[in-house]
Every structure is written in C-alpha cells, then in structure tokens.
C-alpha cells in the first residue's frame, strides 16, 4: 500500500470487546507500536480508566497530570425547606433526606453531577462545588511515542467524565488508537462514540461469542463501522466464525493461541516489538482501515 496516499487522512480507532481479557490491550499496544514508522503523529489513549495499564508496556515519562472534576451539590440547610423535590429528581439516590428530623445530606460517591437537584430546588438552597473524579495523565515514551491515560479516582461512581476529558488531549493527532474499557455500558459508549472505526476483540468461546453479540448490537444502534479480531484462534469452537459469516461482519485478523505470544505479553512486552509477523499484520491492517474509514483532512 502506498503510505503517501494516507498522510492526509486522520482516524480514531477504538479497540474494544464485550468480554474482558480477550486481548484489547495486547492489540492496542501492538497496533500503536506497529504504525510508528509511518504515523509518528499518533497517540495511544488508555480509556480503561478503572484500571489503565497500557502505559506499563512502554518506558514512558509523565509529562503532565491534569485533575478532572465533577460538580456535586452543596445544600444550604438554612434555605432548605426539606420539601424533598431534589431527592425525587435524583436518579442515583445521592440525596438523603429525613424531613421530620430536618436532615439532608449529599452522598457524594453516588452523585453523577447531572445537576438535576439544582434545577429542582425552588428555594435557591443548592449550589455546586468541584469534586475530583480522576486525572488525565500525558506520557511520552523514550522513543517519542505519545500515550494518554484516563485514570479515575478510586471509589468514584463512574469513569465517564475522566474518559471524556482524555479525548480532549488528542485533537492535534493524525491517528488516535483507543484502548476501550470492557463491556457495553457507559464507559464503553463514551470511548467508542469518538471512534471512526471500532475493532472488536474476541475469542472463539461461548462467553466470547455471547459478549461479541452484545457489542455488535450496541455498535449497530450507534451506526459505527466495525470489524472483529479473533484472539486465541484455535481455542474453543467454530460458532463465532459462523456468526461473523451470518452477520456479514469483517473478520480482520486471527491471532493464534500461541505460547510465544502469551509469554511475551505476560512479561510486559509489546508483542509487535518482538514478533515481526504480528508487527506487519497490524501495520497492514491499520493502513487498510485508514484507507477505507479515515477522514480526509483537506
């Protein structure tokens, strides 16, 4: 493929999966590594904010760390009439109220910062303050690779605001590779919503298939382009292949169930840095996705 044709194209690719432990980070780190020769203006974003680990695979230095905050309500008990309307508006049980005892409290860990309570209050008793919900950490590796990490604060209800904030640091990059959180709930949505293309990583097992179906159904409702990589190919059964065929879903690649790959990865290595076959596979796969789904910037 002629790389020259691709230099003006930009793309955001999310590496996601329904099931956890299928190899998202293995594929995200390897693909990111494999494209460095031709696409230096790229960034790997670890959106798995509940336990980010992509940066561990690189010898990287923290350049800056930015606090992410969320609004939480503060209730002025002098102005509060204990009418309970803020409690009724709250979908997360974050306002605790016992009117006869004139007790009202905000349970900050449960607050999603939606602001509904402020709207509900007719007595001007609710103001808002900032609460730290996590950080966005910006790294550069010894080789000059850019890595961004969304890291939520322990005990916070949702990683969504931190993932949202991390996306803001990718604007000047030609290529954005996102390591998504597992599952198909809000953290996944917040990651893939930014993507031009989603790579779903799965394995040929009943769990892998069941969760793949959920991911596919979710992406369909979001009108996203996607394809599937089957990791640990050779394990399990053929049902996943039948499913892909019947749904006419692109099978992008198969990563074999291979001891060498497992040993490399479990020792904290980027597989593509030590295995040329894998490196070439991901470089080519990336370029074909960029060609088909990239945005022309001019």
């Amino acid at each position: 493929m002629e790389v020259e044709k691709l230099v003006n194209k930009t793309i955001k690719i999310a590496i996601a999966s329904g099931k956890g432990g299928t190899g998202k980070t293995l594929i995200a780190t390897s693909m990111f590594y494999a494209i460095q020769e031709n696409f230096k203006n790229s960034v790997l974003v670890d959106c798995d904010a509940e336990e980010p680990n992509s940066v561990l695979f690189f010898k990287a230095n923290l350049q800056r760390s930015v606090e992410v905050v969320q609004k939480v309500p503060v209730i002025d008990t002098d102005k509060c009439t204990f009418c309970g309307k803020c409690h009724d508006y709250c979908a997360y049980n974050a306002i605790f109220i016992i009117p006869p005892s004139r007790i009202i409290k905000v349970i900050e860990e449960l607050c999603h910062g939606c602001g509904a309570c402020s709207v509900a209050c007719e007595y001007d008793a609710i103001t808002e303050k900032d609460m730290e919900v996590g950080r966005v950490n910006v790294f550069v590796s010894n080789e000059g690779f850019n890595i961004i990490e969304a890291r939520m604060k322990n005990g916070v209800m949702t990683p969504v605001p931190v993932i949202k904030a991390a996306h803001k640091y990718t604007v000047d990059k030609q290529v954005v590779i996102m390591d998504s959180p597992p599952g198909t709930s809000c953290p996944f949505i917040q990651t893939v919503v930014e993507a031009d293309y989603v790579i779903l990583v799965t394995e040929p097992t009943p769990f892998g298939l069941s969760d793949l179906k959920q991911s596919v159904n979710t992406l369909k409702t979001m009108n996203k382009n996607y394809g599937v990589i089957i990791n640990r190919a050779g394990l399990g059964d053929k049902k996943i292949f039948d499913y892909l065929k019947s749904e006419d879903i692109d099978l992008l690649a198969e990563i074999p169930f291979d001891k060498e790959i497992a040993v490399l990865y479990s020792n904290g290595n980027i597989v593509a840095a030590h295995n040329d076959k894998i490196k070439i596979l991901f470089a080519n796969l990336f370029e074909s996705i960029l060609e088909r789904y990239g945005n022309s910037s001019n």
Partner: protein
Amino acid sequence: MKIAITSNGKELNSNVDPRFGRCSYFVIYDTESKSHEFFENPNKNAENGAGPASVQFVADKGVSKIVSGEFGMKIKSLLDSLKIQMIVIKDPVKTIQDIIDMLNK
C-alpha cells in the same frame, strides 16, 4: 422503641436477610406494644445507593436500631448522625421470631 429487622420473607418464621440495603423485606418491631409490621423494601433492585435509600426508608418509620447481617460502607456515617444503632447478626439461619425473642429477653 422501634427496631428494623431485615427479612427474607414476610412471615415471622422467615430468615433474617443478610443484606441491609437490598434486603427483601423490613420488619418494624415495636418493643413496647410488641407489634410488628412487614414492608417490602422499595430499594431492593435500586441501581445505585440502595443503602442510603434504605436508611431513609427505615428512619422515616422512626426506628432507633437496625438488625441485619451486613451493612455497606456508605451508610455508617448516616446512621451515626441519626443515632441509629447497627446490630450485626452473624448467624444467617436465625428467624425473625428468634430475633424478636432475643430483643425481649
């Protein structure tokens, strides 16, 4: 004095529900009148914050003690500020009647 007991069912021979916030039923027992009343827990399947919402539910009924198997970490400070005492039952096969007998001893 009113006491809340978490229950698996709505009979006196039902077992104590080991979970506080997401228990099936609350029994409110009055030690003076020796009467009891069962309430289905409206927060049983709450997505978030079942614990605090259940504290609110039983506090509204005027209880000063709660008997259950386990209390979540978000509610300790709430119960302290409401001066409601937590009583932890380690033996989950106790029935509601067993607990009422113990309270009357």
